[in-house]
C-alpha cells in the first residue's frame, strides 16, 4: 500500500517533469512557471514626533489592533562609557535602576504593583545606548506609564539591590566559560578590538569589588536627563491624548547636563593569527574568524551586505553549501558583515564542527573567503542574494513597532530618514564586479583573527596548519 504510493509519485513526475498529474485531474505548474501579481502597496505609518517642554524627544504611533500600549526609551549612553577600573558599572546601574525602585517605593513594591496589572517596566544597558521599556494593557496603561516615569526620573539606588546585582554579575562572570559558542564570540571581539579597550575588555570580579553606590548615582545623573532621552510609544491610544499625557507626566522633570560626548573611537590594529581556548568537556570545536568591518554609512555598505550574504547568510550561502551540505562538517555555519551605526563593527564567520575536523573546517571557511576575492560570483548567486533582500523588503514594514523603532534609531544615530530606501536602491544596483571589488577592498584574509574553542587532543589535523597558534588563558582572575 505505502509502497505503491511512492512508485506513483515518482513515476508521474519522471514522465512529466513540469506537469505532475493530480488527484483531481488538475495539473500544477513548476515554480519557474508561476507568475506573481504585483505586491500590494505597503502602508508605511508615519510616526508623530515632537519635543516635550523639558527637551525629551518623543515619537508616537497609533496601532489599534490589540488593547496594548508599549514604549521604548533610548538614553544616549552605553557601556562604552564604563570607567576602565569599574567595567560593568553601567550594566549594574541599569539593573539596579529598575530593581531598586524609587524614593517613594521599593523595587519589590513596584514588582507587585506592575505584575498585578500584567504590566512591565524594564531597564538595560547596551554598548551605545541604554534602554528603558514598558508594556501594559490599555486599561491600566496609565499606571504602567506612571511607574515607568518614576523609575526613570526618581530612582533610589538601595544598597541591598546593589549587592544583589553585583552578586549576580559575579556569578555570571564565573559562568562565562560554560558556553563554548559564547567564548568564541567574546574572545574574537576582545582580539579584534583589543583587550584594553571598552569594545574588547571583559568585566572581572575586581571591577565589581570597586563599584560603590555613589558611582551608580553619578552615572545615572550624568546621562539620564530629558534632553538626552528619546521615547517611542506605540499601541492603542489617541496621539493627541498621549501627547498631553506625556507632557503632564514629565512636567517638572528638567535636570540639565552638558551634552554627552562622542563614544570612544575604535583604536584597534589588526591582530591576525590563530587563537586557541582549550575546553575539555566538548565534542565540538566552536570557531570564529573575523576582522574589523565598517559602519552603515560606508558607501560600500549595501554591496558588502550582498557580498557577505553570498558568502555566509542563509541556507544557500557558500559556507553553508560547502561546509554543511557538501562536506557534512557543520550544523551551524555562517557569516555576517556586522556593520554598526557609529563605529566599525566586526565581520565574522561563526561555526562549529566535531573536534576531529576542527582544522579542516576552519581552513575550508578561510578558503571560501579567499575564493570570494579571487573571482566574481556567479550571476545566479548575485541574483539570489539581491532578490532575497529586495523581495523580503516588505518585512521591514510589517508591524508599526518596527517602523517606529527604526525611525527613532535613525534619529538617534543621525541617519537620514530615507536611509532604508537608499539602501534598497543601492542593493538593486550592485553588480558582480562590485561584489568582487568591495570584498577585495574591505576583507583581507591576512588580517583574520581565528578563534577556536575546543579540545585540541582530539583535533585531527593540528591547528597549526592554519597558522601560528597562540593560547588564550580562560582562567577567571579572583577579585584580589
Amino acid at each position, binding site marked *: 500500500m505505502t509502497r505503491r504510493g511512492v512508485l506513483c509519485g515518482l513515476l508521474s513526475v519522471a514522465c512529466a517533469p513540469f506537469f505532475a498529474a493530480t488527484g483531481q485531474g488538475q495539473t*500544477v505548474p513548476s*515554480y519557474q512557471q508561476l507568475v506573481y*501579481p504585483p505586491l500590494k502597496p505597503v502602508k508605511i505609518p508615519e510616526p508623530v514626533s515632537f519635543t516635550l517642554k523639558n527637551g525629551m524627544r518623543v515619537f508616537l504611533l497609533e496601532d489599534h489592533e490589540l488593547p496594548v500600549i508599549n514604549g521604548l526609551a533610548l538614553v544616549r549612553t552605553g557601556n562604552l562609557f564604563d570607567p576602565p577600573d569599574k567595567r560593568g558599572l553601567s550594566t549594574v546601574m541599569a539593573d539596579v535602576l529598575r530593581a531598586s525602585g524609587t524614593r517613594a517605593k521599593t523595587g519589590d513594591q513596584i514588582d507587585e504593583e506592575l505584575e498585578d496589572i500584567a504590566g512591565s517596566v524594564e531597564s538595560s544597558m547596551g554598548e551605545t545606548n541604554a534602554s528603558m521599556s514598558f508594556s501594559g494593557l490599555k486599561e491600566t496603561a496609565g499606571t504602567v506609564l506612571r511607574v515607568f516615569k518614576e523609575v526613570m526620573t526618581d530612582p533610589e539606588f538601595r544598597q541591598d539591590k546593589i549587592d544583589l546585582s553585583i552578586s549576580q554579575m559575579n556569578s555570571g562572570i564565573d559562568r562565562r*566559560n560554560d558556553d563554548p559558542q559564547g567564548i568564541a564570540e567574546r574572545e574574537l571581539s576582545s582580539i579584534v578590538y583589543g583587550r584594553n579597550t571598552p569594545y574588547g575588555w571583559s568585566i572581572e570580579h575586581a571591577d565589581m569589588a570597586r563599584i560603590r553606590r555613589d558611582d551608580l548615582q553619578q552615572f545615572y545623573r550624568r546621562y539620564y536627563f530629558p534632553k538626552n532621552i528619546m521615547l517611542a510609544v506605540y499601541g492603542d491610544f489617541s496621539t493627541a491624548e498621549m501627547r498631553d499625557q506625556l507632557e503632564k507626566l514629565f512636567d517638572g522633570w528638567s535636570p540639565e547636563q552638558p551634552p554627552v560626548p562622542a563614544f570612544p573611537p575604535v583604536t584597534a590594529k589588526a591582530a591576525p593569527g590563530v587563537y586557541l581556548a582549550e575546553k575539555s568537556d566538548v565534542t565540538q570545536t566552536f570557531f570564529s574568524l573575523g576582522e574589523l568591518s565598517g559602519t552603515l554609512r560606508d558607501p560600500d555598505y549595501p554591496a558588502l551586505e550582498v557580498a557577505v550574504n553570498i558568502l555566509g547568510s542563509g541556507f*544557500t550561502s557558500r559556507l553553508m553549501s560547502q561546509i554543511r551540505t557538501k562536506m557534512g562538517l557543520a550544523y551551524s555555519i555562517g557569516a555576517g558583515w556586522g556593520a554598526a551605526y557609529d563605529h566599525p563593527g566586526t565581520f565574522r564567520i561563526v561555526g562549529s564542527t566535531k573536534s576531529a575536523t576542527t582544522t579542516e573546517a576552519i581552513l575550508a571557511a578561510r578558503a571560501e573567503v579567499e575564493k570570494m576575492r579571487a573571482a566574481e560570483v556567479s550571476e545566479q548567486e548575485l541574483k539570489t542574494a539581491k532578490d532575497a533582500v529586495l523581495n523580503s523588503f*516588505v518585512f521591514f514594514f510589517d508591524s508599526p513597532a518596527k517602523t517606529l523603532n527604526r525611525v527613532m534609531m535613525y534619529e538617534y544615530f543621525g541617519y537620514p530618514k530615507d536611509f532604508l530606501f537608499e539602501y534598497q536602491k543601492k542593493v538593486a544596483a550592485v553588480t558582480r564586479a562590485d561584489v568582487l571589488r568591495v570584498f577585495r577592498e574591505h576583507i583581507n584574509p591576512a588580517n583574520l583573527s581565528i578563534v577556536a574553542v575546543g579540545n585540541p587532543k582530539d583535533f585531527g589535523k593540528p591547528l597549526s596548519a592554519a597558522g601560528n597558534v597562540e593560547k588564550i588563558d580562560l582562567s577567571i582572575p579572583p577579585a584580589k
Partner: protein
Amino acid sequence: MLFLLLPCLLAAQSAAELQKSFEKKVTEFTLANGLHFIVIERHEAPVVSFHTYMNVGSVDDPGGETGLAHMFEHMAFKGTPTIGTKNWPAEKAAMDEVDRVYARLDAESNKGLHADSKKVAAIETELEADMAKAESYVEPNEYDRVVESNGGLDMNASTGEDSTNYYYSFPSNRIELWFLLESERFLHPVFREFYKERDVVREERRMRVESSSQGKLVEALAATAYAAHPYRNMPGGWASDIDHFRRPDAERFYQEYYVPANMTLGIAGDVNPAEARRLAEKYFGRLAARPLPSQYRTEEPVQEGEKRVVVSSPAQPFLILAYKRPDRHSADDAALAVLDSVLSDGRTGIIYKDMVRDKQMALGAGSQPQFPGGKYPSLFLFFVAPSTGHSTEENEKELYHIIEQVKTTKVDEATLQRVKTKLRAELIRKLASNTGLAVELCSYYVNYGDWRRLFTELEDYTKVTAEDVQRVARTYLIPEHRTVAYTYAPTASSEKGGVQ
C-alpha cells in the same frame, strides 16, 4: 472580596470577546484526503506566515532509530524530483545504487569481529564513489534558494517530542509559491545527500547536547525519569542510532507518519480564504489519503521511589527536579499551569523572591509546568543555576521548603488574581504576529481539536481556586514521583579555565 472578583469576570469576558473577533478572521476547511487548513486573515501588511504542524515527533521514532523524525525533518529541505536535481532519472539510479552498496557495507560490518576489514574498506571506497556520482546530479540547496530569493523569511523547522513544525513567511503575492513548494515536499520528497545530512544531524547533537553541560543534564534527566515511555529519548536521538540509520528507514518513516490526516496547515496574514481554499485543493489535493498511524506508545509505569542522576561536568553547577504529572488533557492541567505561574512568574514568583532575590543562593531559578511534551504524561520541572558559593544541595533543600509551603499554605487571592491577569495578557500578546497566530491556532487545533481552545483555556484558568493549586501540589509534587538531576565538578579538574 467583590472588588477582587470583578477583574476576574472582566478577564473572562474579554477572552470571549477576543475569540468572537477572531471568529470573523478565521476560516477552516478539511480536504477530502484529511488535511486540515486554518486561515487567519490579518491584512495589516502584505505579508503572510505559514506553519505546517505535523502531528509526529520523536515519540514516534522506531526502536533503535531514535532521531529519525528529526532526520526526516532535515530531508524535507532536500527537494523533489523536479527541485534540486540536474537529471532526475540518472540521480535516482545513482541514489539506488548508494542504497545497495550501503546495505552491503552494513551486512559486512555487522559481522563484528568476523567482518573482513579489507572487504569493508573496499565497499567504503565504492560507496564514496557512488555517493559522489549521485551528488554530481544535485542542484545544491535549490529548495532553499527558491524560498530565499522570493523573499522568504525565517525559514526553518523543528522536531520536538510531540510534533514536527515547518515554517516561514512570504510577501503576500507569493502565496501560491508556498502552496506549490510545501505540497511538493510532502508529496514526493527526495532523500538526496542522505548520508552527508546524517553527518550534519550528528553535528547538531554534538552542538546541542554533547558540548553543553545543560544539554547533557537534560538528556540524562529524561532518560532517568522515564523508564519505558519514549519521552525518555531526546528528539535529537542517541549518537549510535544517528550513525546507523539508512535512507530506506527515513523513507519508511515518511510513508507511515506523513499522511495528510496527520498534517495541519496554518496561514496567517494578508490572505484571501477563498483563494487559499482553491490553491489548497489544487496543490494539496494531490496527496493521497492514507490511514493514520498507530498512536499507541508504551505507557510509563508508575514510579515507585525517587530517582537521582548526576552528570560530571567542569561547568558551573545546575540542578533540575522533575515530578511526574498527567498529560495536557487532565482536569488538573489548568491548576498546574497556575501553580507554575505562582511559583515562577516574573519578579513576584515565590521561587524568584525566595531563592534569587532574598536568599541569593541562585543566579536563576524557576519552574516549568510541562516537559518534555504534553501529549503523554509528562514532568513538572524545577530548575536552578546556583550562585557562586552556593551548592546544588543547598538549593535542592530550599526548593523542598518552597514545595512544602505551597502544599501547606493556600496561595492568597491577590497572588491568584495577579497570575490570572497575567495569563490573559500573555494570550493577547500572542495574537500580535502572523507567525505566532499560525503556530498557536494549529497547535491548539491538533492538541485539543479546536483552535478556540486558545481562548477558552482562559476560562479554565479563571476557575482555578487556591484549593485547586494546593491540591495539585499535594497530589503531584511527591518524593516518590521525583527525579533529581544535577551536575557536579570532577574532583581533579583538568579544565584549564575552571573556576575553583
